[in-house]
């Protein structure tokens, strides 16, 4: 069966390593914070200017001056740092953030990503997404493998205006985990009960399947 949003987040959380600085985008990426593996410590970066983002506040902790990049009220953990947006994007652009997780409309086999603009629909803006994809050392994209009409979102070439070029390294969809390198999608894992054939059928870009593809393991 295709993964739920929570399961996609759980699988992405397996990419976290002890000591990582991580930026989580809005939507499924935000859920990753709920599944940080036991025994490891990561610091969450929020691009408005917070390193060491904590959970939502209690009523008593609520503070209008304490928000995350999604403009939601948050807390800071002990050991957090707060700084200007220029400083925040200096650490992003400068490659100091170890992992960025974000959603996308389309990804292609050359690691290009389109996530901010659908021509003909109202364009709200890219926010910090272009800076994040240009700066992070390691980018994981979460998305559904195909749209609701069954059209693949993993393409030869993105059709929508790009957010960044050649930057996506890994994709976790509701069907599979794939690595992007050498101009192709490499299938690494399947969602439990999902066949390689179904993934092949729903991947429009070049897909490389090498040997037996294991199912994802959730603890």
């Amino acid at each position: 069966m295709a993964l739920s949003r929570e399961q996609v987040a759980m699988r992405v959380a397996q990419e976290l390593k002890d000591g990582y600085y991580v930026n989580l985008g809005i939507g499924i990426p935000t859920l990753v914070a709920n599944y940080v593996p036991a025994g490891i410590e990561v610091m969450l970066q929020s691009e408005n200017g917070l390193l060491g983002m904590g959970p939502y506040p209690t009523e008593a902790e609520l503070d209008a001056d304490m928000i995350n990049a999604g403009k939601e009220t948050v807390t800071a953990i002990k050991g957090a740092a707060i700084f200007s947006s220029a400083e925040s994007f200096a650490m992003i652009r400068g490659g100091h953030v170890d992992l960025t997780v974000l959603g996308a409309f389309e990804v292609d086999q050359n690691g290009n990503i389109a996530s901010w603009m659908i021509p003909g629909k109202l364009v709200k803006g890219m926010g910090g997404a272009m800076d994040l994809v240009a700066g992070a050392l390691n980018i994981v994209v979460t998305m559904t493998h195909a749209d609701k009409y069954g059209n693949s979102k993993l393409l030869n070439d993105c059709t929508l205006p790009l957010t960044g070029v050649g930057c996506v390294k890994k994709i976790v969809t509701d069907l599979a985990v794939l690595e992007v390198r050498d101009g192709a999608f490499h299938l690494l894992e399947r969602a439990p009960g999902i066949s390689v054939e179904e993934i092949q059928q729903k991947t429009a870009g070049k897909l490389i399947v090498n040997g037996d593809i294991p199912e994802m393991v959730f603890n």
Partner: protein
Amino acid sequence: MAGFNKVVHSYEDAMAGLQDGMTVIAGGFGLCGIPEGLIAQIKKMGTTDLTVVSNNCGVDGFGLGVLLEDRQIKKMVASYVGENALFEKQLLSGELEVELTPQGTLAEKMRAGGAGIPAFFTATGYGTPVAEGKETREINGRNYVLEEAITGDFAIVRAWKADRYGNLVFRHTSMNFNPMAATAGKITVAEVEEIVEPGELEPSQIHTPGIYVQRVIKGNFEKRIERRMVRKD
């Protein structure tokens, strides 16, 4: 000895000199850390044809959104503008021009503007619509886009504490764009929660040195929350 007394006592004095067609840089991220009273004063003055540079354009009826009500903004430079129905309406009707700028590039444009750097190369936006019409260059095997700095006739910021020298300290994440905005205005006006005596701010803890700030006014803030999220404990 009024030389370094930058404190003004009315919003009229705070925004004196603002004229039609000027560029105003505003600090804030969403509704967090916005100079509420200075925005209200611009609304009251009715200044038009403004170019406003800020990460967002407020919401309907609050923040920079109020400047849309009487069509005071000609052009908005921002990274994300999705929170505002009136904005959408004026954008679609062609009354409002928008220059969407990646958030980090926007912050750096302000920083560069204040720091006397006319332009900088960044990888952000290379190969995307943002790079169209801009100079690009390959440096050490990577492609970059040349982005120009931004300065404003006015910069309006919100700080937590100030002294009469214009030294500023920001509170929590309401800092956001405020320190860069403060450096990039020909006239920078800081609306603050508290004005303290010189010496009360620890010199090494000052976020924005007073040299960047021309006017300081004590404000009262509603501090509206855009997305109120709480956990139950």
